[in-house]
């Protein structure tokens, strides 16, 4: 690295901003300093992992969640709501067993925001390994408070965070606390503030909706009265793409979630659907019509001419990127039935993955690169399957005499959202990657389908 010797430079290093003025003679010293700094950070970032979330035989981690307190009784509701929402997050994650205050040792039941370490007491009878406490208060439209997490086995303070925000954002704060707890206990980022886009016909026509991971914060995104289907996220998670029949053609639109502005992205005659954004956020693969068939087209940001990736008399649909951005998985009926394929951008090689069954669709590549989830028709019903990206192993996740379709990965690759009609009407469900903890996302009039799980929220 050669820097202009007299220009001050800012280095953002592990959250610490250092401004240095580099001179030639000091270069070596600075290099040594950075070496030391990186070693220092490596050692402190090596925190204990309490729970390996990728263990297939995972036993939920027992955590005690105290009643969140409030300095003024009038604010008790919001502190309580935050505690309820984050406890629910931890419970439905399948990672935790939440023990509530009514089961605490009597001395601890009152709840306290700051517990002296020597007061942590004896929790052995309860069989919990960690304790979460918190306190929140409201002043006007502002909400402020903090949580503390303790290791009850080693009797030590693990982590605490203070939050200040708008009162209306209490639910976000609750999800963030749950994220921090997951991060501390598992070493992996939590997904409690991620959102799932989907389609519902509850207004009488299909519109696009958003909902939080826990089924809260349900909101309608499109209001155009037409048929709107197949929502897909951009990589940053600030735009939703979808196909709408407004102009009597399945055109691709995008809505900016912060400005609520709508854009018509692609309106070629025929299909414009199912855009898959690359992990680097710069490219999009889209279904478009060519010679009366659906083909895959690669487009780059900046509006250059699309590149056609597939050719011939078959249909090519449903693209999904590998996490390294080097391959895609998609559906083709070139064999006579719809099957799952991969394409490598380096070798240009196309490879068929599925050979069992006559209907294999909706492939989605796991963010962890271990599986491609897809939907297969088995004896007249649709079920969700996994296959390794090299096609070597396959496994069935759902078993029912109903349809389980349209899998969509959570950004951490530990959950799948999917559509099921197990209760008669189509609805969105969530399950863990091992097929456990299947739960309905929410309940409302009408049906829901086309789930698309959004990226991490920054």
């Amino acid at each position, binding site marked *: 690295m050669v820097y202009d010797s007299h220009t001050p430079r800012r280095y953002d290093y592990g959250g610490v901003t250092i401004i240095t003025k580099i001179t030639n003679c000091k270069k070596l010293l600075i290099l040594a300093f950075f070496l030391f700094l990186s070693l220092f950070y490596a050692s402190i970032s090596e925190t204990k992992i309490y729970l390996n979330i990728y263990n297939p035989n995972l036993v939920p981690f027992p955590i005690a969640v105290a009643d969140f307190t409030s300095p003024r009784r009038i604010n008790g509701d919001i502190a309580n709501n935050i505690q309820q929402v984050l406890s629910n997050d931890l419970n439905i994650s399948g990672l935790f067993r939440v023990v509530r205050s009514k089961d605490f040792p009597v001395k601890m039941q009152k709840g306290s925001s700051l517990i002296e370490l020597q007061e942590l007491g004896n929790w052995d009878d309860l069989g919990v390994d960690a304790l979460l406490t918190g306190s929140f208060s409201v002043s006007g439209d502002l909400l402020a408070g903090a949580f503390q997490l303790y290791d009850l086995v080693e009797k030590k303070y693990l982590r605490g965070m203070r939050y200040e925000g708008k009162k209306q954002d209490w639910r976000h704060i609750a999800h963030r606390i749950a994220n921090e707890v997951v991060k501390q206990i598992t070493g992996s980022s939590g997904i409690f503030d991620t959102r799932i886009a989907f389609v519902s016909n509850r207004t009488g026509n299909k519109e696009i909706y958003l909902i939080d991971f826990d089924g809260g914060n349900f909101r309608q995104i499109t209001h155009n009265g037409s*048929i709107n289907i197949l929502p897909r996220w951009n990589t940053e998670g600030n735009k939703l793409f979808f196909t709408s029949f407004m102009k009597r053609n399945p055109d691709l639109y995008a809505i900016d979630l912060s400005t609520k502005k709508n854009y018509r992205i692609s309106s070629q005659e025929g299909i414009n659907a199912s855009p898959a954004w690359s992990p680097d956020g710069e490219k999009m693969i889209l279904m478009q019509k060519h010679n009366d068939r659906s083909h895959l087209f690669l487009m780059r940001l900046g509006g250059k001419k699309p590149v056609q990736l597939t050719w011939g008399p078959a249909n090519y649909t449903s693209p999904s990127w590998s996490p390294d951005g080097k391959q895609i998985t998609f559906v083709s009926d070139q064999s006579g039935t719809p099957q799952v394929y991969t394409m490598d951008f380096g070798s240009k090689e196309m490879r068929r993955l599925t050979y069992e069954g006559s209907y294999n669709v909706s492939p989605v590549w796991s963010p962890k690169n271990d599986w491609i989830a897809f939907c297969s028709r088995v004896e007249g019903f649709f079920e969700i399957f996994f296959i390794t990206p090299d096609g070597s192993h396959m496994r069935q996740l759902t078993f029912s005499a109903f349809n389980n379709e349209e899998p969509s990965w959570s950004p951490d690759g530990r959950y799948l959202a999917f559509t099921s009609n197990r209760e008669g009407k189509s609805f969105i469900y969530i399950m863990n990657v091992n097929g456990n903890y299947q739960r309905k996302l929410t309940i409302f009039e009408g049906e829901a389908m086309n789930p698309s799980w959004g990226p991490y929220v920054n």
Partner: protein
Amino acid sequence: MLKKSLLKNFLLLLLLFGLLIGCAHQGKTKSEQTEPPQREEEKIIEEVKLEPQRIEPEIPQVEITETEIEPNFVQANYPGIEGKFLESSMLKDVHFALDQADLSPQARQTLTENVKLLNKFPKAKIQIEGHCDERGSTDYNLALGEKRAASVKNYLTSLDISLTRLSTISYGEEMPLNTSHNEEAWKKIDAVI
């Protein structure tokens, strides 16, 4: 002034369409009442090309004219979808086997019958709709509907319907023939195939 005369000419053209046009298509609700529900469908719809910005105020007149001339034809539209078209029970739907886009002998016969009607109205524009039932992947069904519509389009051109009169649209699984989800409805659908 120029704009007005253009408008008039355009309206005349539309009236001409109204006179010459016949055709249309079997209404969805009718077909559900009179026929056993079938698995897949293909619709042929006759569409009047409208330019909404220019002729919007005149549309009610066009409607009236059409009804007077040919009572069999009903102007219709899909809620939330731009454009209007004429429907008639005289144009029959074409049905496909599960997952398939090939025309059965029966489908070809239906299309041949439809062509007789279409030939009476040589200036009518025809939009072919491709549909699928709700089973299966939403985006794959969009592609399958396109393939089905193309099968019909190709067969119609082989029967000397000019390609310039034909357009296609795939609605995928968004307008299934049988919208009932209960077990009984499924069984009925299965029994047809």
